[in-house]
């Protein structure tokens, strides 16, 4: 029984933090608000630290680690507003490692480990809510393979990545599965979204009768388990990143209120302010508890994985919302300026709050799972 990280896991987190402190300050992030938003040097730095190789098995040239090892790193990515597609690639790597055919693994994993391949998942649709069951993007049999049609929204960095991992339904009433496509293929169009978070990029991606061979279906056949894991991994990663961003906002608020003087005293000495910071700490620490536990659930894949992940996504989403809002409030007027960094954390956390299911959707998931467990008992 040990709910803590090892010395090595903390040490790795520290080295990642140090690198990002140097290389990815908000000032640097601000230079990427236009253009494709992809910083090659940062990508190579992240790769050199071994982060992209973490989820690649050793036999494919990676480090063979898991979500528990990754948890503190994803929290750090949130804390430093690390842009996709690094996190998106990591999520996809785990899915490919677990569910890809040997040929798919051999073709993709070594390249990922070396930092040579960027992948993002295409999950959300405008018609659907948050549930992958509502997916309307469809793969229909065509020749020896499939023809893919549909429209995805909020696909991260679709202009920069090399591959997309697309959630699709196989046949009108068929199962869900994942396909791997190259976004440059004929029949695929991308439209750049205007985003709440200007430090991120995402696209609307339309597929019209995109022809794919059977070898582009992840695992060789539609795998609902792979889809389920993908959305759970996305939700857990978002939980960890929101926790990281929220942690930074609390630090900024404590620092600012310790220095800002009004009525002849640092405003941080006023109880109305202190007590809010104390409540923010409770939210933050409990978010960590929830998000770390979700990472453990992904690593060990217990029967209750979905419920444990939903618990984290719901709790961390609400917590990040209130920490970011309160953190901005405690800065007063300067908190409302573009110049101050805090709005970038607010925007990132808000974006993550609505990716891979919002808190209400995940609470409903927890309720359904709880009732099912009670029935079974």
């Amino acid at each position: 029984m040990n709910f803590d990280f090892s010395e090595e896991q903390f040490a790795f987190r520290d080295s990642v933090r140090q690198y990002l402190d140097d290389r990815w300050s908000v000032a640097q992030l601000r230079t990427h608000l236009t253009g494709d938003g992809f910083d090659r040097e940062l990508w190579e730095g992240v790769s050199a630290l071994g982060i992209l190789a973490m989820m690649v098995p050793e036999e494919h040239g990676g480090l063979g680690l898991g979500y528990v090892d990754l948890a503190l790193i994803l929290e750090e990515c949130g804390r430093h507003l690390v842009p996709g597609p690094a996190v998106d690639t990591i999520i996809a790597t785990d899915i490919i490692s677990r569910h890809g055919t040997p040929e798919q693994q051999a073709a993709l994993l070594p390249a990922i480990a070396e930092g040579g391949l960027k992948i993002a998942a295409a999950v959300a649709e405008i018609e659907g809510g948050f549930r992958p069951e509502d997916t309307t993007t469809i793969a229909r049999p065509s020749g020896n393979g499939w023809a893919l049609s549909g429209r995805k929204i909020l696909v991260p960095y679709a202009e920069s990545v090399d591959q997309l991992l697309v959630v699709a339904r196989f046949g009108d009433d068929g199962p869900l599965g994942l396909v791997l496509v190259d976004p440059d293929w004929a029949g695929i169009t991308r439209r750049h979204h205007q985003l709440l978070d200007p430090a991120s990029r995402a696209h609307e991606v339309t597929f019209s009768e995109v022809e794919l061979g059977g070898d582009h279906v992840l695992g060789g056949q539609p795998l609902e388990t792979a889809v389920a894991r993908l959305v759970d991994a996305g939700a857990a990663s978002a939980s960890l990143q929101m926790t990281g961003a929220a942690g930074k906002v609390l630090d900024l608020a404590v620092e600012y209120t310790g220095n800002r003087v009004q009525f002849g005293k640092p405003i941080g000495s006023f109880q109305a302010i202190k007590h809010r910071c104390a409540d923010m700490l409770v939210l933050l620490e409990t978010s960590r508890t929830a998000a770390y536990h979700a990472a453990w659930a992904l690593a060990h894949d217990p029967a209750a994985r979905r419920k444990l992940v939903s618990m984290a996504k719901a709790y961390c989403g609400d917590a990040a919302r209130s920490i970011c809002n309160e953190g901005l409030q405690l800065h007063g007027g300067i908190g409302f300026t573009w110049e101050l960094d805090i709005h970038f954390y607010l925007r990132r956390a808000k974006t993550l709050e609505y990716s891979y299911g919002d808190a209400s959707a995940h609470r409903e998931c927890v309720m359904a799972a709880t009732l099912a467990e009670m029935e079974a008992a």
Partner: protein
Amino acid sequence: MDFSYSPAEEAFRAQVRSWIKANLPEGWGSTVHEPEDEHARYMFRLDWEKKLFQGGWAGLAWPKKYGGRGATLVEQAILAEELARAEAPEGLNIIGRNLTAPTLIHHGTEEQRRRYLPKILSGEEVWCQGFSEPNAGSDLASIRTSAVRDGDHFVVNGQKTWTSFAQYSHWCFMLVRTDPEAPKHKGISFLLVDMSTPGITVRPLRQISGESEFNETFFDDARVPVENLVGGLNEGWKIAMTTLTYERGPEDALARQIRFKRDLMRLIVAAKTIPRGPKATAIDDPVLRQKLARSVIEVELMRLNCLRSFSKQLQGKPLGPESSFQKLYWSHMAQGIYETAMETLGPTAPLAAGDPLAPGDGLFQTGFLQSRAFTIYSGTSEIQRNIISERVLGMPR
């Protein structure tokens, strides 16, 4: 990170489980319950505690030389979990076990430990906590109850209040003022007082739940031997801080969590039958489902928060002001459960225990009333927030 138990720990759990089953009364929880009468109920709880002692389960993780078994904290937690799971009675000597004992282990003399700890374990001596006074609650350091040296004794005068279980207690640990001239934190001492000492009067107070767990306790020239001083003269404040850390710590919270979760599960069962109009039940209401789910999540996170803090303790890191964060979290979380319970009951929420139509015979109403104390005792939420902001976040005073 590893949430599994070792084979030895699993074996220990099995052993605990079978002992509990063999020792709870036949039909416990279905036909046999705790006595209705408050006094009889407390005596029943004390008997159970003595039984636990005879079974060798008391003070599991305490050092052997004080009557414990030197077990690990994990084993201690397993015992607490299994007792809560079996809905075994709570003890009566909670303050003795959870507060007096760790305080004496940290700050007592060897003689004091040997004198007091074994009798806490055996249930022979029940303890109460004499900290709060009518004019010293949150501002605990402003206590006025005085202790004046007279030969081999201190003569104690003053009044304590909200003293839980004082009417059943043989001993009280208390804060007394021994130097009225010194700055307020520096003139306080920590005394162990025999409740049968002439000059002590206990008057029960009625609580909002109708029960009388806490009391007013008066001291009129009560003579306490000087060897009952813990730590140095005028050094009681530091000792009181140790006591409070244990009062707010994860071990206490782990056992509570199981009771909160049990009540929440009962609530969800009830929600499936409580009508909402002719065709639906409470569990069909999407707004209520959101609130119930929130509680399901939060109660589970209470356990996981405890395990995180517990893991730090297992690595030998001392329990510090972070225990305030645990207490602040669970007290508000639990109030949320009972608030949602009342909403689930809806129109029957006003029906209390004894009314045949009260769902669960008023369990939730009692829980709701009792939950109001969570954010007051062991330091109010406002005080916990002061501690967290100043001592954890380092904010200015």
